[in-house]
């Protein structure tokens, strides 16, 4: 039960759960923020980037091993240039307080790849947030008890927060990211 510094989880996972880290992002430098010009998104990975199918395992690992029991925030980000959607899970340690622990999952944008196992069975607080990610970004969460649209109406087509969703024109007829 101890607080982890930023990036510490990555090295811990490498030794303790070697299979969960997403190998695609192993070779990246830790912080590339300075290297990019204006208008360029950067993928920060001093936090652990784990495989989509391992997120449940990692979430349990950080909760049971380090006391990060408060899953505060799930954010989906559409990195159009890199062709991925990133899910950022932010955990807090309610007993020790301190800053958050971020665990990332990077998945493709196509419907076949855009799948992450749901955390809702263990963290019911993820319920609405996962529905929001599904509604806005089209991330599918197998294992979610009620994965339906949350803000948009059920007949709506497309995922409005994706970067390639048209922002002008008759947006109700466009179909994107299906």
């Amino acid at each position, binding site marked *: 039960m101890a607080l982890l510094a930023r990036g510490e989880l990555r090295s811990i996972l490498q030794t303790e759960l070697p299979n969960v880290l997403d190998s695609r992002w192993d070779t990246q430098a830790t912080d590339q923020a300075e290297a990019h010009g204006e208008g360029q998104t950067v993928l920060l990975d001093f936090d652990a980037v784990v495989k989509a199918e391992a997120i449940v395992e990692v979430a349990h690992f950080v909760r049971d091993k380090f006391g990060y029991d408060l899953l505060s925030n799930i954010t989906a980000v559409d990195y159009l240039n890199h062709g991925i959607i990133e899910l950022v899970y932010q955990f807090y340690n*309610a*007993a*020790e*307080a*301190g800053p958050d622990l971020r665990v990332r999952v990077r998945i493709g944008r196509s419907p076949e790849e855009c799948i992450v196992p749901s955390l809702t069975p263990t963290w019911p607080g993820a319920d609405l947030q996962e529905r929001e990610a599904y509604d806005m970004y089209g991330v599918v969460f197998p294992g979610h008890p009620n994965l339906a649209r949350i803000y948009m109406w059920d007949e709506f087509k497309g995922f409005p927060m994706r970067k390639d969703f048209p922002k002008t024109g008759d947006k109700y007829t466009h179909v994107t990211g299906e």
Partner: protein
Amino acid sequence: MTLSHLATEDVFVVERNDADFRAGQGMTKGLGIVFRKFRKALFGKPNSDRADTEGQFNVQYPEERLAMPEAYRNMPILLYDDATGHELCTSCFQCERICPPQVIHITQAKDPATGKPVPAAAKFVLEYDTCMSCGYCAEVCPFDAIKMDHDFELSTANHPELDVDYNRLLRPVSYYETIAPTMWSDVKEQAMKKLQNNIKRRPGDIGRDHGQKIKGGAPVAAAATPAAGAAPAAGAAKPRGPVAAIGKNMSEDKTAKLLAIRAANAAKRGGGAADAAPVAQAAPVAEAVAAAPAAASAAPTGPVAAIGQNMSEDKRAKLEAIRAAKRAERGE
């Protein structure tokens, strides 16, 4: 659960009154407090101060009004100089750029002789219905030309009327001085200096040809001059605190206000559509002279009368034209 980040003295457990014997004493206490409130509200003095928690505290709105704090922001207005009739706006597009809901539309004036841009706006349209009153336009304006008005009684049954054009946005500087004396005195000097510089670069009537300021060749400036003198006095009389007058009897203010409204209405009825506006425009001036001590809240009435007029069809057409031009500019 261990709470290692919190010292034990930083946490306390709320008392749930588990051990009490309940025989209605809690309810009786509540009834007693409510009855005390009833007694105080019925017989005591009204709530007049922020420290008071007893006595009536509501304001009888149309008759009694709270004085607006200077910083209060409702809808943007544009200022013009009383003496010369020149508008302060130079169409620098700062406000149009910052506006979060993008409701400001400006067209820069051009010198008819040379075709070169002139530091004045030819058209200035503001969509009051979509404005979110954030005040950024007034904040960023380098010439202090756009300010936030205190008038909030803008409801109308005619929705298109809320696309307000230059003529109806203009207010004299003396009016703004009455509603926000200190805020204006902070910026007055540099604003006027910048205006004088800009006037030099405006050929002919460009920059003062909006509204009815100079209709018929006689600038309203003549009538406005006394107001410039009277306004500071009126401003000084204005209470600085926003709630200084809570619950007080405001009969003097009230009567002044009523008179002003009646005068404005009479002016509207008396003059035709074309003539009404100048009279209404002059109303604040007349009031400022007539009721200088009480004018602080009464002054805004005049320009309101001007807003109240129906927006004509061609104004809407103008707005459409401006929007179309914008779209063309963006190359859509």
